[in-house]
């Protein structure tokens, strides 16, 4: 029925996860770090939906899992951005390597 195998989707999700991991570890702007984390969560969602169709036991459960993941990711983005704005008001910076107030 389908010609695209499961492993190709998994490799694509792995590549996107690695891009997000690299961005989260090397970028200095905290907004970009947050959105890189969103990209990693998206890669996980691709895995969930691919297993929902091509897994051992294909059912609708994988899609429902990914819906919950999207909801939690949206809540995480909102709270993370609120923390970022509160931090910017106090420290006047959004660079993650200058957020070392607990290290000193």
């Amino acid at each position, binding site marked *: 029925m389908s010609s695209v195998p499961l492993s190709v989707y998994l490799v694509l999700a792995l590549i996107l996860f690695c891009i997000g991991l690299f961005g989260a570890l090397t970028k200095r702007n905290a907004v970009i770090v947050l959105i890189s984390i969103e990209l990693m969560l998206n890669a996980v969602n691709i895995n969930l*939906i691919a297993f929902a169709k091509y897994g051992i036991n294909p059912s609708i459960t994988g899609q429902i899992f990914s819906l919950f993941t999207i909801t*939690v990711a*949206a809540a995480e983005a909102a709270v993370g951005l609120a923390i970022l704005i509160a931090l910017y008001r106090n420290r006047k910076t959004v660079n993650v390597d200058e957020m070392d107030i607990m290290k000193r």
Partner: protein
Amino acid sequence: MNGELILFFVLALVAIGSGILMLNLTKVVHMVIALVFTFLSIAGLYVMLSAEFVAFVQVLIYSGAITIIMLFGIMLTRHDDKTETKIGVPRMILVLTGIVAFFVVMFFQINDLSFGEQAADLHVDNTEKIGIALYSKYVIPFELTSVLLLVALVGAIILAKRDDEDKGAEDNE
């Protein structure tokens, strides 16, 4: 080489290319705009994987809400400085080595993974099936998610509220 494979490769190319573009651009607004294309092509992949409702949710939440909230975050903070001051070369090499090692290990694990052809009919009445499962089998996680969203809403408002306005409100009372 049929149409489905071509569509998959186009969507995957747009997704990965926009991700690489996000890593290489200098202005932060352009990075977020590049990631919109990644999110949209991932929504296309969801349609290919017979998950139409999740594709709509992806377009609404990621391409709409999260991108806009990230753009708000960029506009409300200082964004004029370009990120040309990168991190040091030793740390970059360390991060690259770790990520390449992770990629290689995971790639050889999942490269020839296949569970055979599964005859799933997920695309038939997709939204109806999701609704029935969400309100019967997963009703408690669904309600817990609503509580989580409420907590995140209140927490975000309290975190982002100004302190001097807080004092002013207390003085008024």
